């Protein structure tokens, strides 16, 4: 088999996972982790230059290229952050060295799972890959072995398994719908074949399948009311994992959902998947915005903010059309970058302060100016203030929907505003005022955080034409 970029994004994490499990010492393994994720990222970028051949199992097209590059980039910067974060956790004795080896190996397995889910051309393979990525994150969430961490991992596990089981039932139904048209066997599950024949599938079967898929993968996206696992998993696991969960794994599940949405859109007799997604998106957005108030744990607060933003993204994709899809895609990218940057800051902040309780964190801009202002900038970005990238994408979501469904936009804007004030209410005490608690300078790597924020800031002002046309192309594909 010839080595091309497509096998590269799968092979590099797989090899790295084995290597990292075998090698001792955390300095070496942390560096190797960074190198491996960087190589994966570089390989993913090369997908744009050389188009690999797609087979019945793997596929590269315009849609998943965007997801792969985003995933590998954030996983690379997270591994840089993770190196300094984990070092501190070992110093304070919160994490044992054996677990660190396990942690790094699992990090690569998770990357493998997510990349496989993104490049899979087979809906069964995609399901297996998403299950694998879920399993590894479950293990990572429980890595601190505290009562809360185990409970969060257990809850994530049970709810995630139910979600994944429903998704499989939906996948089987899609196969059943495809079988009479395409015939038995492998090709009735191959994505590219399914798409070309979608118009002839039995619409009733497709409808039921989509409901199961929406509930199943929607659980993994964290849509309300299926989100119960998400805040716990974010709060109790190591912060790099919170960043990867919010920034990446939710996107991968969303990607699966979008693929099936495209399938349904090609069948004129099937129900329109849009209204279902719009409803769930709106509920998630408004519900999570209200949940931002009265949070006492800083990581839980930002986990709810992730639910809110996934709601906005699903809303945008549910509305459909080139402009709303473009906005959804942009918002997803901006959210991934901003939310992971926030989690980088929050990770170091909770290490400096020795707590995640909001009540015990105060006056960060005075005691730790770099971290404090980094967090302020991140929250300003995530709240959607101009001129940052999220303002751009939220503005696009709102303006593209306003002409079509003004009432829906009012609900959406209400949710966004409620969320914004909720975040600023908390930010006020966290970042400003009298410093409280330990004020030792953080041994942090600020580069990943500010790199992400710089990209978000730039995107709010200027987007390269190549990127815009690329996104427009994908938005048209999504229908």
């Amino acid at each position: 088999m010839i080595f091309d970029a497509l096998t590269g994004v799968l092979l590099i994490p797989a090899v790295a996972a084995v290597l990292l499990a075998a090698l001792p010492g955390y300095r070496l393994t942390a560096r190797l982790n960074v190198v491996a994720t960087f190589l994966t990222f570089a390989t993913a970028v090369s997908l744009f230059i050389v188009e690999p051949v797609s087979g019945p199992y793997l596929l590269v097209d315009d849609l998943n290229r965007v997801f792969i590059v985003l995933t590998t980039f954030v996983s690379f910067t997270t591994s840089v952050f993770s190196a300094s974060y984990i070092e501190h956790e070992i110093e304070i004795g919160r994490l044992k060295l054996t677990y660190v080896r396990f942690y790094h190996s699992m990090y690569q397995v998770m990357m493998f799972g997510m990349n496989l889910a993104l490049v899979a051309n087979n809906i069964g393979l995609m399901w297996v890959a998403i299950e694998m990525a879920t399993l590894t994150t479950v293990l990572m969430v429980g890595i601190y072995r505290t009562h809360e961490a185990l409970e969060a991992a257990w809850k994530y596990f049970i709810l995630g398994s139910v979600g994944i089981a429903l998704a499989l039932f939906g996948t089987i139904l899609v196969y059943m719908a495809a079988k009479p048209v395409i015939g038995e066997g492998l090709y009735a599950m191959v994505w590219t074949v399914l798409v070309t024949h979608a118009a002839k599938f039995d619409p009733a079967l497709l409808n039921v399948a989509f409901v199961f898929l929406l509930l199943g993968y929607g659980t993994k996206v964290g849509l309300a009311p299926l989100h119960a696992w998400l805040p716990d998993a974010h709060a109790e696991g190591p912060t790099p994992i919170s960043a990867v969960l919010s920034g990446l794994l939710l996107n991968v599940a969303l990607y699966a959902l979008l693929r099936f949405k495209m399938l349904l859109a090609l069948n004129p007799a099937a129900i329109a998947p849009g209204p279902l997604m719009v409803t769930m998106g709106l509920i998630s957005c408004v519900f999570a915005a209200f949940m931002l108030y009265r949070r006492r744990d800083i990581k839980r607060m930002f986990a709810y903010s992730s639910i809110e933003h996934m709601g906005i993204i699903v809303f945008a994709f549910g509305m459909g059309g080139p402009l709303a899809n473009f906005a959804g895609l942009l918002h997803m990218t901006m959210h991934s970058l901003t939310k992971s940057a926030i989690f980088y800051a929050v990770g170091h902040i909770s290490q400096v302060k020795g707590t995640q309780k909001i009540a015990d964190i105060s006056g960060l801009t005075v005691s730790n100016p770099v971290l404090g202002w980094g967090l302020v900038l991140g929250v300003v970005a995530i709240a959607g203030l101009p001129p940052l990238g999220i303002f751009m994408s939220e503005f696009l979501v709102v303006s593209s929907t306003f002409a079509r469904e003004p009432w829906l936009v009012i609900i959406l804007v209400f949710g966004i505003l409620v969320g914004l004030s909720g975040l600023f209410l908390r930010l006020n005490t966290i970042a400003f005022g009298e410093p409280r608690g330990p004020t030792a300078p953080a041994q942090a790597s600020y580069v990943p955080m500010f790199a992400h924020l710089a990209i978000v800031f730039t995107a709010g002002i200027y987007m390269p034409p190549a990127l815009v046309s690329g996104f427009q192309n994908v938005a048209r594909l999504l229908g």
Partner: protein
Amino acid sequence: MHSLSFDIAHMLAGSLVLVSFMQLYQDRLYALLNTFALHAFILAASVAWQAFVQDAPHLYLTAMIALVFKAIVIPVALHRIIVKLGIHREIETVVGVGPAMLLGMGLVALSMVVMLRVTAEADPLAREDLAFALSVVLLGLLMMVTRRNAVSQVIGFMSLENGLVLAATGAKGMPLVVEISVAFSVLIAFIVIGIFLFRIRERFDTVDVQALDKFRGERQ
């Protein structure tokens, strides 16, 4: 007229639904475990029959996994865990037997109505298999909701998963069935090991009052 092979497949799938109902009213863990072993055994028989009818030898592998792993290894392991955790005398009554059975019947009726209407054009065997499979899935979900104990939740999840395997084998010629059943076995093994290692007795809440106080850091 239906052939003999159809009747046997029908009987096996129907028995699976019946055993799912039996699981709903078992309030002792040992009895529940034995019922689950029976559930897995019937699944193995059903998958083996499908392998024979469809002339698909790879499905025998799935049947073997169901028989060895789910009907023997997992029940034995859970049996020992129950003894170790000291919960073998526990009786759980979250929802009464009557309401649980009524809910279960409602779910089966729902899945019949949905699946039979939707799959009017599919071949009758696959069609009824799918309706039965959805019933088993929904009954498994119902069991997970009505139980508080971690072990019985896992049993609920496994019977849900049996329903999925039934659906996957009923869909004639579906690729990756063996791989999917292996992936599920790995998942279940992880869950069982998880219960054992971390001694999880209850699901989302805990009996430990002190732990409840700092629960999620949200209550003060």
